[in-house]
Every structure is written in C-alpha cells, then in structure tokens.
C-alpha cells in the first residue's frame, strides 16, 4: 500500500488484525458454520437414534426407559439377523462385481485413452449425477415379468413363457446395485491409476518385466488405495440401501434397510428400528475395519506417487 507521507496508518483492531494475519484462524472461522450445521443435522440426530435404541415402544408411544430389550429382541430373532447377514453379503457381492468390472475400464481411461480422456470421464460421470431411483427403476422394466429381457426372448422364440427367476431375488439386487454404483467405483480407481508415474511402468519394463508382471508388481499395488476407497464407498452405503431391494428384491431379496423402514412404518416400533439401525452400522463399520486391516499393507505408497 502507499501511505500518505507523515500520517501513521490507522492500525486495525486486535481481533481484525489477528483474523487478517492468521490464515489458520480464518480457516476455522470459515468451516465453523459448516461443522455446526453437520453437527446439528447429523451427529445430534445420530446420537438421538442411539438413545432411542435403548428406549421402549408402548402402543403408540415411545417410553424413555433404559433397556437393552431392543438389541436382545433383534439378536434373538434369527430371521432379522439373517436379513442383516444377507445385506452384508449382497453388498459385498455387489462391491466385488463393480470393482472387478470397473477396474479394466479405469485402467483403459488412465493409460489407453490418449485424445478423448475428458469425454470418457464425462461419459462415466453423468450417470453418477442422475436419479438413483430411476436407474434402479430401469432394471425393474428390464428384468420384469413383462420386461425387456423376457419379451425379447419370447419374440425371438427362445422361450415361450416369461422367466420368473430374473426379478425379485438377491441376484437381481446384486446386479442392480452393481450397475447403479458403478461410477462410484470407477472414479476413485481412475484417480489412483492416473497418479502412477508413467516412468515407474517404463522402469519395470526396462528391468525385464512383461506387461502382465508390471501390472501385478507395480500397477495393481499402487492403485490399491483407489480400489480400497472405491470398495468402501460402495459397500458402506449399499448395506443400508432401501430403494433397490424394495423395487427388485422381492421377499427373498429384502435387506436391512427394508427391515428398518418397516419398524418405522407398519410395525411401528421405533426403538427396535433404531436398534437395528445401530446394529447394522456397527456391523458395517466392523466389516469395513476388517477390510481396511486386510488391505493396510498397501496403504503406504506415498513415495511412489508423483
């Protein structure tokens, strides 16, 4: 600044000068409202959910008596436990499917595409931003009794009666989940792949590895962080998915999300629903931690990054 000669510049107040000078303080001031909002609208409700899970439903009212009864009821019900177990398995299957199918595409976009990288990325990103409900709904019309597959097979003369095994089973749920969550897998894997220094691959080739060995010994280990991120990003939220099992799962494809919903709907037992939610989240977290533990040896690849 240019100060007019003589007159000493007016000093800003202590607080203002601290805010002006301390960028860390500015950072905290900026993020404070966001943290307050998230705390108020997510952490507080989750806390209340936890509290609710120890309460008791009496007729139409929730009674604030501390009890482990809900958890005991849930753990004592093989049917409900089975649904939670099935949810974990279905999500795991969907996650594995997505990652396996998406990895080669991520690798192709990262290494194989030269000119239209942005276009490829756009193509896989658009579905990410479009309606989840409609993307799931689309599978209902494909797999349905009068759906795309059945009617095509019939008109081609391959079958003469619609197949009923397509829809309303866990496989339909896995298929639909895998499809709907594909962009979530592709992007993290792509990012970790595109961060691999090309000269590392060239160095491995130079040191005598075939392309296959380069993949196993260099590319795959270095892209593991992306694979891990993608897996968690799909596995964790899908366990509690409600839309997909409801639309394409049928009775055999029901998942824990539907169970929770029924407790807040027809069954009208909020505390039990809360307990099941908490139990499901604990199970998911445990599974995720186990997964992280197994893959932790791939965690430290910092030195290899560009």
């Amino acid at each position, binding site marked *: *600044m*240019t*100060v007019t000669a003589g007159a*000493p*510049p007016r*000093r*800003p107040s202590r607080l203002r*000068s601290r805010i*002006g*000078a301390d960028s860390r303080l500015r950072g905290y001031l900026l993020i404070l409202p966001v943290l307050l909002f998230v705390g108020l609208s997510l952490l507080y409700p989750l806390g209340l959910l936890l509290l609710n899970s120890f309460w008791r439903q009496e007729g139409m009212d929730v009674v604030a008596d501390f009890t482990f009864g809900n958890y005991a009821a849930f753990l004592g019900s093989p049917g409900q436990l089975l649904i939670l177990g099935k949810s974990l398995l279905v999500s795991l299957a969907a996650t594995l499917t997505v990652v396996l199918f998406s990895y080669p595409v991520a690798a192709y976009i990262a290494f194989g595409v030269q000119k239209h990288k942005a276009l490829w990325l756009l193509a896989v990103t658009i579905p990410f931003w479009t309606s989840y409900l409609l993307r799931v709904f689309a599978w209902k019309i494909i797999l349905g009794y009068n759906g795309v597959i059945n009617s095509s097979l019939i008109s081609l003369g391959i079958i003469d009666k619609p197949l009923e095994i397509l829809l309303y089973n866990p496989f339909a749920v896995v298929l639909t989940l895998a499809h709907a969550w594909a962009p979530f897998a592709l992007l993290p894997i792509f990012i970790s792949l595109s961060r691999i220094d090309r000269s590392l691959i060239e160095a491995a080739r130079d040191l005598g590895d075939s392309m296959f060995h380069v993949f196993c010994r260099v590319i795959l280990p270095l892209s593991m962080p992306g694979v891990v991120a993608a897996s968690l990003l799909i596995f964790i939220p899908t366990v509690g998915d409600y839309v997909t099992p409801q639309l394409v799962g049928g009775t055999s494809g029901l998942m824990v999300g539907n169970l929770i919903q029924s407790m807040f709907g027809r069954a009208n037992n909020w505390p039990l629903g809360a307990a099941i939610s908490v139990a499901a989240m604990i199970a998911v977290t445990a599974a995720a931690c186990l997964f992280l533990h197994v893959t932790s040896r791939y965690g430290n690849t910092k030195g290899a990054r560009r």
Partner: protein
Amino acid sequence: MARHSVEIDAIRKTFGALTVLDDISFSIEEGEFFSLLGPSGCGKTTLLRLIGGFEPATSGRLRIDGQSVEGLPPEMRPTNTVFQSYALFPHLTVAENIAYGLRSLKLPKAEQEKIVASSLDMIRLSKLGGRKPHELSGGQRQRVALARALARRPKVLLLDEPLSALDKQLREEMQMELRRIQRQVGITFIFVTHDQEEALALSDRMAVMSRGRVLQLDTPSRIYEAPENRDVAAFIGSMNFFDGVIEAAEGEIADVRCEGKGLLKASLTHARGRAVPGSAVTVAVRPEKVSLGETGADNRIAGTLSGTAYYGDRSHMHMQAADGSTVLISAPNARRAAGGGPEGAVVASFRPEDAILLPMTGNWDGRHAA
C-alpha cells in the same frame, strides 16, 4: 548518510520448535538494491514475508520508511511484492492486473489509466495490455508482476526469487532489465535469491544468510574478495582452504605453517591484532588466484595434477598436494588451444595478498556464525 528504508531489529521467527530466523538485525538504505542470498531453508524468504506483512515475527521490531509496521497487514504497508510464482490474477487482463492495486488508492480514473499506460511502457509490453496471463511467456509474466507491484509506488519493492523460473539466457536479460528499472524508479529493492552470481551482479549490498542468521553483510565485491568467515567463503564461489598454525604475524603478512604444504604467507588485513603466533587459522585462496607453474609468487605448493575439467572459457585443475589434499586451480582459457595441458608433477603458486586469513570458526571479531 541516506535514510534507513527498512530497519530490522532483533527479529526472531519460530515455527513450533523450528527457529527460522535467529536474532536478525540490520538496516537497508533508501534506494538500495539489496539482496538476501542463501541456500534454500536459510530463512531469506521468511524474512521477506515478514517485511511484506504476510507473516508476523515471533519477536523483534521492524520499521519501514521510519515507521513501525507491527501488526499492520500487507495491505497497509508501504511495500509491494513480486512473487516467485508471479501470482498474476488469471481472470484479469495484463492491464487489469496492473491496475488492481490502484483501486484502494482512490485515484481518479484518468490518473489510473495514465499509470497503467506508463507501466506497460516501462516493461515494454504496451501492445499486450489486453492479454490474459496465460497468453504470455514466462518472461512477459515476470515483467507484468513487476509492473503491477510498482504501480502503487511502494517505498520498498520485495522480490522473491523472481527470476528462478526463467531459463538462463532470459534470466540474464531480466537481470539487466531489473537493474535498469530500479535505477529508473529509484526505490529500495529487496531481492531474495539463491543464485550467487545473480546477487553479485545486481546488488549494491547483500546479506549472506545461513540457518536463520546473517553470516556477512557487505558489497558484492567485499563478500567475494574478503569473506569474513569460512561459511561465506565456502558458499560464494569456490575456495581452497589450508588449515595451519600462525608462526609469525608482522606488518601486513602472516606466516602460517600448514601440514603438508609448508609455510604459506597470507594477508593480515581483517585479522590484525587477533591472529597471533600459535593460533590455529585457515588460509583461504580463490582457485582463479592460484597459478600453475613458477610465477615468482611467495606461496608455492608442489603436487601432481590429478584431473582437469574443461568449461570452455576456463578450465579447472585438481592438484594433489603432498599430504593428499586437493588444491583447486582455475585458469582462463585466454588462447585457443586444442587439448593438452600440463601433466604430472607441477607447482601451484599464489600471492600472499590474494590469500585471506580466516579463523577456524566464526569471525575475527568473535561473532560466531551459524
């Protein structure tokens, strides 16, 4: 004597347990081209950022143009900065970048336009005022950053390694340009660099820094020809160091007994009164002041030539002395000659007045560097 432009008094800066600036005190005169030279991590950029107001000092006082700037944010200081990355605003044109700082001065529109036009003229980019930064070359961006910082007529211009991103040829061109502009506007320039040739070529005075301290503050020629301690001598250019013990110190010349090299004579200029017989010292001599062969100079070291590096304009020769230590000799290639040169047993010689007598550590006046 000229007025002090910047007065730095007992400035300390720590980041947690790390001391980046350790009790720095010196003054910069008005209209001076002053360089802060040192290896990366020596604290020179931190000192510049302290002056610019981007970071507060942990302790100490700082006065700019005679006034304390303590607690003043950058926008209230009579300084402007040319950033290492140039930090041109990517969404504004060249002219808008230069005019950016004029808004808060509340100058009339016509006045602002005049300043922008003359700034563009000064950096010889009058035709490119409408371009965006990404449409400029590195050298052009550098000049826009300079013009933008000067447009507010600061009392002090701070330059943070502004030439480090340019290639060698462009850098030398810009050095000339910087010097010309500094003479033209006549304000104090504080120039941070790790390039010693740049600092030597540009500065009126310079401070050599290392590990948060100023090792020596002087004119470029004195920094080069009369370093006050081993660290400065080693950091600027190359230097031969011969450790020994003073046998006699009379008049202008000291006799130093050096292991494996016999008796060497060195000038006593700095060390008079401090260097007494029996004290351990270092005789320092620049490689270009050492000649190969008998020259009649008083100091002679015999050895064998172990290697030669050819640099075009000069050659560096490594001579192995009797004790196994290496003597570096730099000789200009004044005449065209293809290959060949002295080999085998040779004698290196230099004049006592070209040799500097240094204490083993610290300075002669008792201050300890680093």
